[in-house]
């Protein structure tokens, strides 16, 4: 019923990769819709290949569909050829599950993981036949919601969305469903949408931008304040206390066509306390919440059996820090009784212990190893609090080459606070030294250096830092290019500084950027994440046309007393903690991982009455990334210990 499939089917032979529009995934659901059921269209504003593997959307897809009052389907941004076809044929954005029109859903909810997808967000709303501005929507229009890491500063997209979910969505989607159901059952009567939005704004973790007044003091923001007394002044993020209670996705979707990360994913923990100062994910997802090791092992073995995948990724912000890593890896590798299963650790810690684990699990297919030292000098790494000593890196690299790897990838950032040319060139020096180590094992040893321009993010100690200009980033990349030109075995890759600038515009912008995003979209600027579609000139033109100054928004250092566009939102972190950490950064002072040291009172645990939930009070072998931390103080810190499964101590690594 209501399926657009008969209209879509004859069009599919005329578009590239038609399989991305058919659904048919293993694990796909075809929920029943009805008067008492709140329907969600979970949308990823980029292609199917990028969006399908997104675990956040898959988790919510299952949780909503398990509810008797919920129905969830999925949608992805149609590629430009498909968009042209459906616009011509007047077919709206559709779900891939039952090919239902976007406008027929009660809620269209987007996952926002990257700022450059904002124009696709607007495009998808428009394709669904919904007015792009929240203020213009009728009572019967779908509600537009967003979640994901970018929404910690939702101000640039505030005009386009009805509600924002901060933090973990597992519980919030249920609360929202209940409120929307009441409204739907009552008939979505004319004039009631405003009332619903006001009720939504009172839900923990839910931010309704239209319920807030924004005041400016000249160019500066004076404040974002509630328009009504019952609307909260500060919106706290949602945090799921125990990941063990949420073993999702239970039926990970298996696509019928190729996608990125085409493998089983099991999330082993959420949160990170390494305290890397550039890393927004590490800051906003605190505290650390580990999944019980037995549950991880069960999700791996059941997941592999169900999906038929031969690869599983253990996901988190630093998987080698997972205290159950040894037992989980051992089980995963031995469980199937075959050496054809490989385990991927997408975020490796830089030390020999980690390489030992990698060697254990990549017996089947040994691809490449990726490390992220992030900066080229010890001084710089103290500033950013990525406390890897050179001997840690060389130890890891030596260990990897000696165990048969021939290629290595190193990730770095440039444009970091206080960065000098010496720091930048340190990247090339590190890479050359790694190649030198590799050559003693294999003459074909090579190292790929991938350099990205640093974009300061909200809720990090670097949120006050003025981003390097586009030309400064170009200069630094030029330095590296010149310096590595004759370095055999070092291959340099870099992220386009122009795209870094566009990310910078939206990363810390305020509501005055809404028209800028709209301008870029209206001038055809979709798929800005894709280099072939990214248009630097369009962004500059849009900024100029709307009297927004790039210098002011992107390159300017903020002061301590400045009201930031996200000050009315909270990731649990105290602003004075972040400011202190920013001062510490400038003083080149490193801060140890608080999982195994006393608390720094960042606010994330204490504010929510949650504690780090780890399986061990002692840090994993390999130490705290060479911080030289006295690790004996582990027991005195606020951690909840999970029962730890017995493992064979000599099994892996160390």
């Amino acid at each position, binding site marked *: 019923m209501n399926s657009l499939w008969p209209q879509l089917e004859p069009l599919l032979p005329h578009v590239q990769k038609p*399989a991305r529009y058919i659904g*048919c995934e293993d694990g796909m659901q075809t929920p029943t819709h009805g008067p008492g059921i709140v329907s969600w269209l979970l949308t990823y504003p980029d292609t199917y290949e990028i969006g399908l593997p997104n675990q956040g959307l898959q988790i919510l897809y299952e949780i909503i569909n398990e509810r008797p009052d919920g129905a969830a389907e999925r949608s992805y941004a149609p590629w430009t050829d498909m968009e042209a076809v459906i616009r011509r044929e007047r077919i709206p954005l559709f779900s891939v599950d039952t090919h239902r029109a976007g406008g027929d859903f009660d809620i269209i909810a987007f996952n926002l993981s990257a700022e450059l997808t904002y124009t696709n967000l607007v495009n998808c709303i428009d394709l669904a036949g919904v007015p792009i501005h929240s203020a213009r929507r009728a009572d019967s229009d779908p509600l537009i919601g967003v979640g994901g890491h970018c929404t910690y500063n939702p101000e640039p997209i505030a005009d386009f969305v009805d509600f924002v979910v901060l933090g973990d969505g597992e519980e919030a989607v249920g609360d929202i469903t209940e409120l929307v159901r009441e409204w739907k059952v009552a008939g979505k009567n004319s004039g009631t949408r405003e009332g619903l939005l006001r009720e939504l704004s009172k839900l923990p973790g839910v931010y309704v931008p239209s319920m807030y007044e924004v005041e400016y003091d000249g160019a500066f923001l004076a404040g974002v304040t509630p328009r009504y007394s019952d609307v909260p002044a500060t919106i706290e993020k949602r945090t799921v206390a125990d990941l063990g209670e949420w073993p999702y996705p239970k039926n990970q979707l298996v696509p019928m066509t190729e996608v990125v990360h*085409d493998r089983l994913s099991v999330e082993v923990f959420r949160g990170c306390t390494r305290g890397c100062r550039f890393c927004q994910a590490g800051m906003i997802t605190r505290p650390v919440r580990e999944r019980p090791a037995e549950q991880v092992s069960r999700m791996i073995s059941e997941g592999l059996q169900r999906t*038929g995948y031969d690869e599983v990724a253990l996901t988190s912000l630093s998987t080698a820090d997972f205290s159950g890593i040894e037992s989980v890896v051992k089980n995963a590798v031995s469980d199937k009784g075959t050496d054809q299963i490989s385990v991927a650790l997408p975020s490796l810690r830089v030390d020999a212990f980690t390489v030992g684990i990698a060697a254990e699990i990549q017996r089947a297919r*040994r691809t490449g190893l990726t490390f992220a030292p992030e900066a080229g000098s010890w001084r710089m790494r103290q500033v950013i609090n990525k406390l890897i000593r050179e001997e840690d890196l060389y130890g890891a690299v030596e260990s990897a080459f000696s165990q048969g790897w021939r290629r290595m990838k190193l990730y770095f950032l440039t444009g970091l606070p206080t960065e000098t040319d010496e720091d930048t060139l340190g990247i090339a020096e590190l890479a050359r030294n790694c190649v030198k180590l590799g050559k003693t094992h294999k003459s074909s040893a090579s190292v790929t250096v991938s350099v990205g321009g640093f974009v300061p993010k909200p809720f990090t100690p670097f949120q006050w830092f003025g981003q390097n200009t586009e030309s400064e980033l170009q200069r630094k990349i030029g330095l590296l290019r010149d310096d590595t030109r004759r370095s055999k075995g070092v291959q340099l890759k870099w992220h386009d500084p122009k795209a870094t600038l566009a990310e910078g515009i939206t990363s810390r912008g305020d509501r005055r950027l809404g028209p800028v995003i709209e301008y870029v979209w209206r001038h055809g600027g979709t798929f800005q994440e894709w280099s072939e579609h990214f248009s630097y000139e369009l962004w500059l033109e849009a900024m100029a046309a709307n009297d927004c100054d790039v210098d002011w928004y992107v390159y300017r250092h903020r002061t301590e007393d400045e009201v930031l566009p996200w000050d009315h939102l909270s990731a649990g972190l105290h602003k004075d903690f972040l400011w202190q950490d920013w001062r510490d950064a400038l003083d080149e002072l490193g801060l140890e991982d608080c999982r195994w040291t006393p608390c720094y009172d960042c606010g994330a645990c204490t504010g929510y009455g949650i504690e780090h939930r780890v399986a061990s009070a002692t840090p994993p072998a390999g130490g705290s990334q060479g911080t030289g931390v006295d690790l004996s103080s582990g027991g005195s810190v606020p951690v909840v210990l999970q029962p730890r499964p017995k493992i064979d101590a000599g099994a892996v690594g160390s």
Partner: protein
Amino acid sequence: MKNDNVKLRICFDKHGKIRFTSHRDVARIWERTLRRASLPVAYSEGFSPRPKLSFGLALSTGHESDAEYLDIELDPDRTDLAMDLESLATELSGHLPVGMHVTDMAFVDRRTPSLQETVTSCIWQIDVVDVDADTVARAVARALAAEDLVVTRERKGKQVTDDLRPLVLSLDVIGPIEADDAGSVAGVRLLAELGTQPRAVRVAELLAALDPPLTERRVVRLHQWITNDDTAERSDPLSAAVSPAPAGAM
């Protein structure tokens, strides 16, 4: 290297939405399906071991089929040659996506030449649209009467001309068809037998070579045939290859 792997030949179909998956997609679907059924598939040696599967002639993305074939090599030490292939077929179909089923399978001699080498022709049901039956009939008659049907295509950056005519083994107009629930729309149905050696003629290039060119809508591969050069007898890739050795398999 000694290879005494057991070879299993599978015939399967592909209909409905899943027909928009590519040949590569289908290969990956099969790899997962076989792992889910825990079949002891043999793997290649080397740095990046791959399961030993070999597919027959690629089916164009968007086309349906009643007759797709796949050869699987199984580890002889872990393969029970007396296994019940009917129940295995049911199990595999259960793991395949909606629209794909195993329709037949048998152990074949491991020296059986590949599907690519031995299949000589395919039967295609081709529905064309936006055209009346008379025009189709005239286009077909012209093609059959022609001495050659020359097409030009790009191959490795060079223009290559081919004559399709010898590979058009038969081409018949079945007649007008009405729209139905099974996915057919109003149009004209053709039945074609197209040769595959030395290369397989694609339906799209045949239709483009007709005068006037025709627009395909629904295309179904109905059969793949192996014609014996000496006897001119036609058999399908399964019955042609069933080996006497693991008798009673299916």
